[in-house]
């Protein structure tokens, strides 16, 4: 028998020379230890595709605290507990904790049915309640004051007998913000696994009944129509329409200077002011979409940088003026979805199957609004507020000489930030200089260099022995990792091929020029008809889908943002190719076959003459 291929062990991974100190400053419980060699780990490139700033590890930590609690102790998933995580060279590896003892599984099944079924039975009521909780949490975060230190305490402190000085507020704000962030993740996982589970149940049924059905066909049967992820783009369309209605559309041109446009609108009278009012309505809350998935501080929102929504305005305005309908045809989408559900139902052989199908699609439709909608509140809106609050601390500490740039705060762990805040609190109280300005700049520089270095070193997609089956519903649902995927990762040594495979996200075949867009700042390089090749997209990117002819991503499954939006726009798309941004070169001609999930690099192939 040929020797089975396997992934390296955690102990085989070496810290990149020169970055040892940066590695050591991640929390001790995230460092690999020798016992970890016994376990299977995979690189969570879906959520953490880039080396982690030390502060940003809170996004992993808080998420796994909450995910674990809900899987292990709240919903009591029968076969899986939480997710362990480790970080090495800035890369986050994760591994599930399976329950294998049949007696324990039996006990957990009983618990699970009492708890999860209660959620399913009361889904709508609990989800309404969830939205109230989330909005309260967001309001609480918005109400947190900007941290600042006056020279002397305001006289009100004396007159009201407040008895607490301003330096205490720094700790209070910081801890409340960190507490709120953790709480947000608990809310996030209150419904998520149950929602995905109900969807997966329908998915499995369809795969059994229709062995060759595509993932995207199933997604289309379940997709919600009022999902929050479409809303930011809808708001841009609305603003374009209002600009035309108010007669201020001439101010929006390609390559416009946004500040200048805003100033002009302020100056041109009521119509301009009215449009600016509309902009404010859209911004709060819908422009709180992050340009990333909410796991990196440098993924900013539209509110932080208006260039993306503004870049889409001239195109929408042109379409409106030429009489084109840019409205999202919700009613048509709903009737198409219903037709799809009915057409597949008709293919089933028995009444029994049709009854089960009705139950499963019914449950999937009930739970799905949460699955699609939660991200806007959690990963986008709240996360944005969170990072911006930390940025305020970054600015305050910068002003006190701790470092040069506001953003440098993200090179500290969350615990180190708290200690820097305490340092400043002490200094303000004592009336002596803080120690930070001597302590942090060298560390910041060292970690900055480490992250840059780590980014140059690719890392193994998985570590340790491959399990026979992956029976952790969380890992299958959230990461799409199955035994088949792992086998293909192992056999994936062939770099010569011109073909890349991924998930078929939206069918159609298109040839065109590849435009590698590594960050939201590069979106302006896209020309009409280009094929977008990127690591991952999110709702921020929606407005550019009107411009491109196809889309390819490194990361994502059939329910990823790009897949959902591509289907909306009928845009051929292949997601989750793993390495499109590395293998395809900017400007190369490529062919995207969205029905098969294949991207072909055409560069060296002769172009067939048109007959």
């Amino acid at each position, binding site marked *: 028998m040929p020797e089975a291929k396997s992934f390296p062990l955690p102990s085989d991974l070496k810290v990149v020379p020169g970055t040892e100190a940066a590695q050591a400053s991640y929390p001790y419980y995230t460092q690999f230890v020798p016992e970890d060699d016994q376990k299977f780990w995979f690189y969570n490139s879906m959520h953490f595709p880039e080396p982690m700033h030390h502060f940003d590890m809170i996004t992993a930590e808080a998420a796994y605290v909450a995910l674990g609690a809900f899987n292990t102790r709240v919903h009591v998933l029968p076969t899986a507990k939480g997710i362990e995580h480790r970080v090495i060279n800035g890369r986050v590896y994760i591994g599930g904790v399976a329950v294998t003892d049949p007696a324990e599984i039996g006990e957990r099944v009983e618990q699970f049915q009492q708890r999860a079924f209660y959620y399913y039975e009361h889904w709508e009521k609990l989800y309404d309640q969830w939205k109230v909780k989330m909005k309260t949490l967001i309001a609480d975060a918005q109400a947190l004051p900007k941290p600042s230190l006056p020279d002397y305490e305001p006289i009100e402190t004396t007159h009201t007998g407040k008895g607490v000085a301003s330096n205490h507020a720094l700790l209070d704000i910081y801890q409340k913000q960190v507490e709120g962030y953790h709480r947000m993740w608990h809310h996030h996982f209150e419904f998520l696994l149950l929602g995905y*589970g109900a969807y997966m149940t329908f998915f499995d049924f369809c795969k059994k009944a229709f062995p060759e059905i595509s993932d995207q066909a199933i997604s289309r049967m379940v997709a919600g129509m009022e999902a929050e992820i479409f809303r930011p783009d809808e708001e841009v369309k609305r603003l374009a329409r209002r600009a035309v209605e108010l007669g201020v559309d001439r101010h929006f041109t390609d390559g416009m200077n946004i500040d200048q446009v805003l100033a002009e609108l302020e100056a041109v009278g009521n119509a301009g002011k009215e449009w600016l009012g509309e902009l404010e309505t859209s911004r709060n809350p819908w422009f709180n979409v992050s340009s990333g998935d909410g796991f990196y501080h440098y993924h900013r929102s539209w509110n932080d940088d208006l260039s993306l929504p503004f870049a889409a305005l001239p195109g929408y305005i042109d379409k409106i003026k030429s009489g084109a309908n840019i409205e999202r045809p919700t009613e048509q989408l709903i009737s198409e979805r219903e037709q799809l559900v009915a057409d597949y139902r008709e293919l089933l052989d028995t009444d029994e*199957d049709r009854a089960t199908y009705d139950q499963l699609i019914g*449950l999937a439709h009930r739970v799905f609004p949460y699955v699609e909608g939660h991200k806007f509140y959690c990963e986008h809106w709240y996360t944005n507020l969170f990072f911006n609050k930390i940025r305020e601390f970054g600015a305050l500490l910068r002003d006190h000489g701790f470092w040069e740039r506001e953003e440098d705060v993200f090179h500290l762990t969350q615990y180190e930030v708290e200690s820097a805040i305490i340092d400043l609190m002490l200094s303000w109280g004592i009336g002596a200089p803080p120690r930070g300005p001597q302590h942090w700049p060298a560390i910041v520089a060292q970690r900055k260099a480490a992250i840059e270095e780590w980014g140059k070193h690719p890392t193994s997609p998985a570590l340790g022995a491959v399990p026979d089956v992956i*029976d952790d519903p969380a890992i299958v649902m959230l990461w799409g990792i199955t035994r088949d995927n792992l086998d293909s990762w192992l056999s994936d040594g062939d770099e010569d091929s011109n073909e890349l495979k991924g998930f078929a996200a939206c069918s159609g075949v298109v040839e065109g020029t590849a435009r590698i867009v590594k960050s939201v700042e590069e979106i302006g390089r896209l020309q009409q008809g280009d094929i977008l090749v990127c690591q991952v997209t999110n709702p921020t990117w929606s407005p550019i889908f009107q411009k491109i002819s196809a889309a390819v991503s490194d990361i994502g499954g059939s329910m990823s943002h790009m897949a959902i939006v591509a289907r909306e726009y009928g845009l051929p798309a292949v997601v989750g190719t793993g390495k499109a941004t590395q293998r395809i070169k900017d400007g190369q001609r490529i062919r995207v076959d969205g029905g098969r999930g294949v991207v072909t690099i055409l560069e060296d192939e002769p172009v067939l003459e048109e007959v």
Partner: protein
Amino acid sequence: MTAVSWFREVGIADRPTVGGKGGSLGELTNAGIAVPPGFVVTTHGFELFLEALEAREPVRSKVEALDPHDLGAATKLSEELRRRVIEEPMPADVEQAIRAAHAELCPNAEPVAVRSSATTEDAEDASFAGLQDTFLWVLDADQMVAKVRECWGSLYSVESMTYRLKHSFPEAGVAMAVVVQQMVDAMCAGVMFTRSPTTGDKSVITIEGAWGLGSAVVSGEVTPDRWVLGKITGEISVRDISDKHARQVPAPGGGIEEIANEAVIANQPCLTDDQLMALREVGRKIERHYGKPQDIEWALDEHGNVFLLQSRPETVWSAKDAAAPVKPTEDNPLKHVMSIFGGRK
């Protein structure tokens, strides 16, 4: 009862007189599917002819008297009866009816296909029984009549006669209908299954096709292009474009011949995506009409119009349908989620 029936006059229920193929083409025509026009020489036409033969010298009693294991005797009788079917005069009214129908079908001397259309399901399945004659690109009325006779004659092939004797089919019920249909000078042609031949999945349509007449695909002489389409969604999940080295085309003097494909078209897909979608629409329409998955032969003419040449119910997977539910029902529907959360059994 007439010797000739037009497609539009018959349906699947007329199988005993027009055969399976003729009935199906009539059914499709009446369902509004684009079928090349044609008529059926009914079993009644055959029986009138057979009566004329019997009047001169026995036919059926000779077959019944045959020892199916005596290959020499069977061969001799087959030669004799087939010669008689081909050479002896036809009742004038039968021949006139066939020629009149042909003249109406082909006002501009359009070429036709002449195909046997068996009346029993057994005979249709038993292709080895030699009842599946097809003559393509038949140019004129004389040739057409000759080919009708050949189809009739195939009832007296050695295989056919011995098959009937071994299965004790009464000779009195043996009859043959013949389909005469305008030919499509196919740019490309092939077959379509309205389910997956590999998994039985009813949500996909499999299309195979190659350049030229469909006979090359059906006979397996050319590896066809192959596509798998979502029946409902139209997604194209498989595109296997093969090296189609040759195609079958009409021969100058009638019949067909094989010619090599130019390199430039050999590796080109023979159907565009729009054409695939048009075929899918037709496939769905036929499937809905019959209420079950179909095995279809199709052709595209030079203008890209889709024509249906044949449609039969799919038999392999349909025998397995409804054998077991996809998933057993649950008293509490929520228990279905345990298949995800409960772990693999």
